[in-house]
C-alpha cells in the first residue's frame, strides 16, 4: 500500500519533470515541424546558466533567498531568449521548407556545436546550486518524505501546461497558430506572418527548454553531456503522446512517469526498458501517437 502510494507520488513528480522537458520540444514540432535534437542542449544551457548564477548568488550571500528563485527563473528565460533568437534568426530561417528529416540532422549539428560551446563557457567541472532545492525543506506525505521543491515542480508543470493549452485554445494568437499548424499555405494567404510566428514559437520552445534545465539544476550536479541524456527521453514522451500535441506530451509524460516509478518499486530490473517498451507498444498500436493526427495525402 505504502509503495503504491509512493509509485503515484514518484510517478507524478517524474512526469512533471518529463513534461517540462518535453513541452518545448512538442511546441516547436507542432508548429514548425522541426524535431529539435538540440532541445537537450537548451535544457543544459538553462541548467548551466541557473547553476552558475544561482551558485554565485548564494555562495556570496548577495541577497535574500526569494530573489534567488527569481534569479534562477530569470536567467533561464534570458538565456533561452538569446539562444533561441540567435539560432532561429541566424540559422534556421534559412532552412525552412526543407525536408523534415533534414531538419533533424541540422539540429543534430547544432547539438554537436552547442555541446562544445557549453564546454568552452562553463568548462567540464560540475556546477552545484543546491540552495533553492535545500532551502525549501521537505514534507511528510503519509509517512513518505518528499522534497517540497519536487512538489513545487509538479505545480509549475501544471501551471505551464495549462497556460500553454489556454494560450493555444483560447487566445487570438493561439488561433492564428493553430491555423498555421493546420495549413501553412492557407494561413499565409490569409495574411498571417508565418515567419514571425516561427520566430515566436522557436524562442518560446527554447525558453521552455532552458526553464526545464534551470528548474532541474538545483536538484542535480550540472555536468557536460547532461543534455544528450535528456533528449532521447523527451523524444520518447513526445512520440508517445503524439508529436506536436500539448495534451499528448502531458499524457505521455504521465504514462512514462508512472510506468517508470512502478518499475522502480516493483521490478527494478525492467526499469531500463520501460520507456522504450511503452514507446514501441504505443507506436505499434497507434503509429501517430496517442494524440497525434493522421494526415492522409490528397491525390
Amino acid at each position, binding site marked *: 500500500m505504502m509503495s503504491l502510494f509512493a509509485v503515484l507520488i514518484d510517478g507524478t513528480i517524474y512526469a512533471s519533470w518529463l513534461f517540462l522537458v518535453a513541452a518545448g520540444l512538442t511546441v516547436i514540432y507542432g508548429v514548425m515541424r522541426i524535431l529539435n535534437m538540440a532541445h537537450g542542449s537548451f535544457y543544459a544551457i538553462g541548467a548551466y546558466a541557473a547553476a552558475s548564477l544561482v551558485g554565485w548568488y548564494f555562495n556570496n550571500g548577495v541577497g535574500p533567498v526569494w530573489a534567488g528563485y527569481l534569479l534562477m527563473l530569470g536567467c533561464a528565460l534570458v538565456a533561452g531568449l538569446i539562444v533561441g533568437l540567435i539560432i532561429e534568426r541566424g540559422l534556421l530561417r534559412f532552412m525552412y521548407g526543407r525536408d523534415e528529416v533534414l531538419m533533424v540532422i541540422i539540429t543534430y549539428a547544432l547539438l554537436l556545436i552547442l555541446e562544445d560551446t557549453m564546454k568552452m563557457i562553463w568548462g567540464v567541472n560540475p556546477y552545484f546550486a543546491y540552495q533553492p532545492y535545500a532551502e525549501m525543506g521537505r514534507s511528510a506525505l503519509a509517512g513518505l518524505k518528499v522534497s517540497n521543491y519536487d512538489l513545487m515542480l509538479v505545480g509549475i508543470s501544471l501551471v505551464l501546461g495549462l497556460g500553454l493549452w489556454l494560450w493555444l485554445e483560447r487566445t487570438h494568437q493561439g488561433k492564428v497558430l493553430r491555423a498555421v499548424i493546420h495549413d501553412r499555405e492557407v494561413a499565409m494567404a490569409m495574411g498571417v506572418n508565418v515567419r514571425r510566428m516561427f520566430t515566436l514559437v522557436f524562442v518560446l520552445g527554447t525558453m521552455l527548454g532552458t526553464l526545464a534545465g534551470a528548474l532541474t539544476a538545483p536538484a542535480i550536479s550540472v555536468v557536460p553531456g547532461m543534455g544528450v541524456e535528456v533528449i532521447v527521453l523527451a523524444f520518447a514522451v513526445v512520440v508517445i503522446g503524439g508529436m506536436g500535441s500539448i495534451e499528448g506530451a502531458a499524457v505521455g509524460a504521465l504514462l512514462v512517469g508512472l510506468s517508470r516509478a512502478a518499475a522502480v518499486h516493483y521490478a527494478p530490473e525492467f526499469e531500463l526498458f520501460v520507456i522504450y517498451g511503452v514507446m514501441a507498444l504505443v507506436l505499434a498500436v497507434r503509429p*501517430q501517437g496517442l494524440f497525434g493526427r493522421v494526415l492522409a495525402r490528397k*491525390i
Partner: protein
Amino acid sequence: MRLSKTELILLGVAVLLAAGGVIAPQWLVFLLTMALAKAMVVQGVVMQMRAGLVTFGQGLFFCVGGYAVGMSGHFLNITDLALLLLIGVGAAVLLAMLLGLLMTRYREIFFAMLSLAFSMILYGVLVKSSALGSTDGFNVKAWTLFGWTPASGQAPLALFIIIVACSGLLAVLLHRYSRSSAGMMCEAIRENEVRVEYLGQSPRWVLYMNYVAAAAVSALGGGFMALSAGHIDPEMAYWITSGEFVFIALLGGTAHVAAPFIAAILFAVVRTYAIELVPHSWQMILGFTLLAIIVFLPKGLWSLFTGQARRAKA
C-alpha cells in the same frame, strides 16, 4: 559476369588500396580498416536514404553483427573469419526480417524515431547482460581463415586486405543494386510512394527487401569492426553511434556507391587529427562541417566530383 567500366574502376581501386596497405604505416592500415567497416554500415544507411528513409538506429545491425561475431567466437569457439561474418550477417537478416514487418509501416520522422527506439532497446538489453560484460563488452578472439592462422602482428594487414576485397565486391554489388529494378523502385518510393502503389508495385515489399539488405550490409560492417578492433561493447547500438553513420552518409551523399567509402575514410582522417589538435572541441568542428555540407553541398561531397552542386544551385 560482365563488368561495366565503373565496376572495373571500383575493383581496380580496391586492388590498388590493398597493395598500398603493404607499404602504408600500420596505424593507417588500421584506420582504413575501421573506416571501411564503418563505410559498410553507412552503405546500409544510404540504401535506406535512397528510399527516402533516414534511420537513427542503424547501429542496431552494426551491433548485432559485431556481437554475433564476438559471441560465436566466445561461446562456440568459432574462429573462422568467413563463418563468423556469415553468422553475423545471418543474425542481422533474421532480426531485420522480423523488425521489417513493423518498420516498413513507418515513414519519415516516425521511421527515424522507431529505428532509434529499437536500437536503444538492444543497448539496454546488452547493458543488462553481465554475462556479456555489460557496458564493458568483451574481447573478440583472434580469427583464422580456412585453417590459416595469421602470425602475430600480421593480422591487421591481412584483415585489411580481406576487408578491401569485401568492400570492392560489395561496391560492385551495391552499384548493380542501385541500378536494378529494386534499387530504382526505392528511389521511386522516395519520390512518390502513392504512384508506386498505383503501378501495381508494393512499396512495403520493396522497402522490406531494402531494409533486410541494408541490415545485412551493416552487420557485415559490424562483424569487421569486431574483428579489427578486437573488442565489442553496447556503445555500438547507442544512438550517438547511429547519428555518426547518418553524418557520414550525408557527408558522402547518395549519388554513387563509392561516396560512403570515401566519406568514411575522410571522416576518420579528419576526426583523428581533430581529436589530436583540438581535443576539447572536435565535436564542434564536426557540427560546423555538417552544417556546411547541408548548406553548400546538399548532395554530399560526391557532388563536388560531378558538378551537381552547381546544377542544384542554378
